[in-house]
């Protein structure tokens, strides 16, 4: 399905789906200051519970090498069960990745205290590291 649709060539190496309550600082500022790796794209969602599996797979189809989903802490979710749902879907998407022959480590779910940007920045860096070690091995 993904191959049939004409997709714009995405440059982002890492895509981060962030819930509205987790990232407060403008991503452009984070990039400008070099706080996050280049080639990263933040996609802001009203709630990570809204995130469907195809959207995650689409990100890979568009050229992302790794994806993370940042939701509220399980018991602090603004929409009660949003991040719980997201975690389940991420789990499912990892299985699909595996079936497709991709390493499931390329997809990660992180739980972040509300309104704090540092854990997200760290997640992005961690994923970047993971990518480079993976590329080193292959």
């Amino acid at each position: 399905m993904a191959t049939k649709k004409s997709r714009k060539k995405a440059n982002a190496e890492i895509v981060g789906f962030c819930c509205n309550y987790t990232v407060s600082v403008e991503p452009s500022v984070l990039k400008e200051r070099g706080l996050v790796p280049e080639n990263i794209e933040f996609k802001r969602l009203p709630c990570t519970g809204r995130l469907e599996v195809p959207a995650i797979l689409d990100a890979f189809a568009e050229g992302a090498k790794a994806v993370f989903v940042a939701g509220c802490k399980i018991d602090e979710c603004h929409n009660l069960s949003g991040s719980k749902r997201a975690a389940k879907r991420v789990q499912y998407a990892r299985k699909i990745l595996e079936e497709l022959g991709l390493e499931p480590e390329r997809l990660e779910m992180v739980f972040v205290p509300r309104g704090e940007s540092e854990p997200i920045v760290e997640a992005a860096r961690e994923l970047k590291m993971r990518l480079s070690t993976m590329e080193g091995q292959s």
Partner: protein
Amino acid sequence: MYCPRPIADVYNERLDITRATHIDFPQAIPTSYYIDPKACLRVNYQTCNLCAQTCTAGAIDFSQKPKNLKLKVGSVILAPGFGRVSHDVLEKFGYGRYPDVVTSYEFERLTCASGPTEGHLIRPSDHTTPKKIAFLQCIGSRDVTCDNGYCSSVCCMYAIKEASVAKEHEPDLDISLFFMDVRTQGKGFDAARKRAEEKYGFNVIRARVPKIDQIDSQLALTWTTDDGQSHSDLFDMVVLSVGLDAPEDAHAIADIAGIELNSYDFCKTSHGAPLSTTKKGVYVAGAFQGPKDIPESVTQASGVAAIASELLKEGRGTQTVTITYPEEDKALEEEEPRIGVFVCHCGVNIAGVVDVKAVRDYAASLPNVAYYEDTLYSCSQDALKAIAEKVKENRLNRVVIAACSPRTHEPLFQETLRSIGLNPALFEMANIRDQCAWVHAQEPEEATQKSKDLVRMAVAKARLLEPLAQPTVDVTPKALVLGGGAAGMTVALSIADQGFETILVEKSKELGGNLRKLTWTVDGQDARKILKDLIKKVEKHPKIDIMLEAELESTSGYVGNFTSTVSKGGKTEMVNHGVLVIATGGEEHKPKGYCYGESRQVVTQLELEQKIAKGKSAFKTTKNVVMIQCVGSRGEDLQHCSRLCCTQAVKNALKIKELKPETNVYIFYRDMRTYGFAEDLYREARQKGVIFLRYTPDQKPEVVKQGRGIKVNAYDRLLGEDISIPANLVVLSTGIAPGENENLSKLLKVPLTQEGFFLEAHAKLRPVEVAVDGIYLCGLAHGPKGLEEAVSQAKAAAAKAAIPLVKGKVAVEPIVSHIDKATCIGCGICATLCPFNAIQMVKDGKRKKAETITASCKGCGICASHCPVLAINMGGFTDEEIFAQIHAFSPEGCGEELEAEKK
């Protein structure tokens, strides 16, 4: 020093460590050590006792117990100040979690030269210098979530001050300030803010930052501006401009004193009587009455003193202790000069740059120097005592202190001389702090050399110093009050109640002034009733003489002995009085433009108020009311902010909503300056649907006539487009213009500010006095202010004016001009130039000669510098003394003189 118990230095906001036995700061009064009982090992664990054993004076006595004292007093004054905003509020902004989020108190200490970092601005986390700082305003103020709905009134200005100080330390700093409204409504504050913004290039952002985030030890802020745009940026340091809270023990104070508190736990008062609590005899001053800045606090402090003085006039003088000075040791003064030189370290203020010990040793080589020493803080109490002892011990008869500015410290040192029987004029200061350590902070060697030069010059002058007489003159126990408005009447009443005859001079036909035009006060009281009561009291008072339709024509004399002529109905009357109070008021500014005067539908706030007073019928056909703030103020016709128009507009908007709730009220503003508790009214107005629209000076709203009606065209910043509001009524907040002060200013020789208001002697410390002794100032003549502040100020002026009246005698400045009659040619140049009317021409035989009225002379020296025949000498600054000082500037000059003397 021996105390083994380290504790956090609370004075330095816990940024430093001190001992359980400590002095908070070197200039503390009294400067004696005290023991923190919570930390002391002896008090808590019965161990240690080191200090008591080592104290050679045996001054530490652990057997002392707290005692209950019973005092019989006639009046109680509450001045407990303000409390701190609670930690919970600060924690919302990451305080305590992120080390580089600091409070404004901490920032103040960090930028202070005698603070924990000696003024080096550092980040608490890693001790590096920050490059980018953000100031967040309204922390714990204007915030109903922490029950502090009021505005703290002072934070906008202090943030600008702190930012300026930081910028002086680190010129490359990038500073952003986040305001909701910029509330710099104090006298001269707007101008100071503008200057600072231009000079330091602050980034002024109008937004409230909801929270702080930290990434890689940088602080991330996200905010939304009023155009709906979201922004983020990273900073090295964030300063929380913390508001003023009610004192923590407000309830305990209220219970003890039996007074009521307001809803924010500040003392409950009313606008007509701002210094009175709900209990008779108990009065309040300062921030406990409501958040306020230094000038207002100092004013209120004097104000309550007046009230207490009214109440207790029967007992006046019954418990006073008089300072007696020893007889002057004339014989010692006449001996060959024996000079003592004391060089001050001023902590690190001077010693950090100047080599104080080298300067001290250098002083030893100067002629007539009999004693020399260096001191850590010369102005501290024990140092003063030590200086006095040394002077006595060594029979010194001239003293030179090389320290800070004589402007602030000379009187202190002179007092010390007096206390040991030396004439205060036998004293000279060299300002090696300001003129050496501060301005040459980067060149320590040169600074030391210059200090030596200054000390040498001071010594040269000190050798020629002569004692000066310190005469006193009697005071006419009567006051003249100019202006019969709220302020003038309050002053007259208070002075009269303190027991002195008062003449109240009013220009118009009736008393009342601007208060006559008000219908109710901001706190909802009937303004007309306040006025009526006030007039009744003034008219009935046996000690007040009211002169209506009268004006001051001329004044001569000096503090304690003024003679004025007042014209009344074509006749003039001579009045003798000891003091004079200016309470001549101001007037509502009449603006140009905005169709004012062209359309009956365009009115000022005061005109609106009279319309509202007529009741609902006046608004029968009114659907839309548009108010425009800062018409004429803040840079149009008037440069200043008129302080009260925002509150007045909100008050009137609420009245309209009360009369006819379906009326649409729009208020165009630049900054809503509803400071203090008036913020409640602002919030209420928003809740009741008054629409507030901000405009900038480059996009002012326009009032246009359209057929028979009018409309207001403006740019709506929230919508991002031009809007047009058809209005039934346009109300202009026009601010307060000074009255015709120029004549009076010339008559009394009291200077005006640039805006045309009278200038006080010191903005913060002497807010109701002017440069001329015996003349006091209050009300709108001083600057725009509301009724509450005018009344406080009037009381303050009454307190200050009563001082010479009570004393019955005034001391005359010893530094006065002295005219040598034999040399004087009677040209009169000095008399015309004297800014204080202190020189009169007196017939001396056939010719007129100039004569100094010593009581009026302020010692400025203008006369001496202009006298064509050098007949005028200034006490303490004679030509010989000055020349000696100048000669000493060149080291050779000093040497030559020495040699000449030897020959």
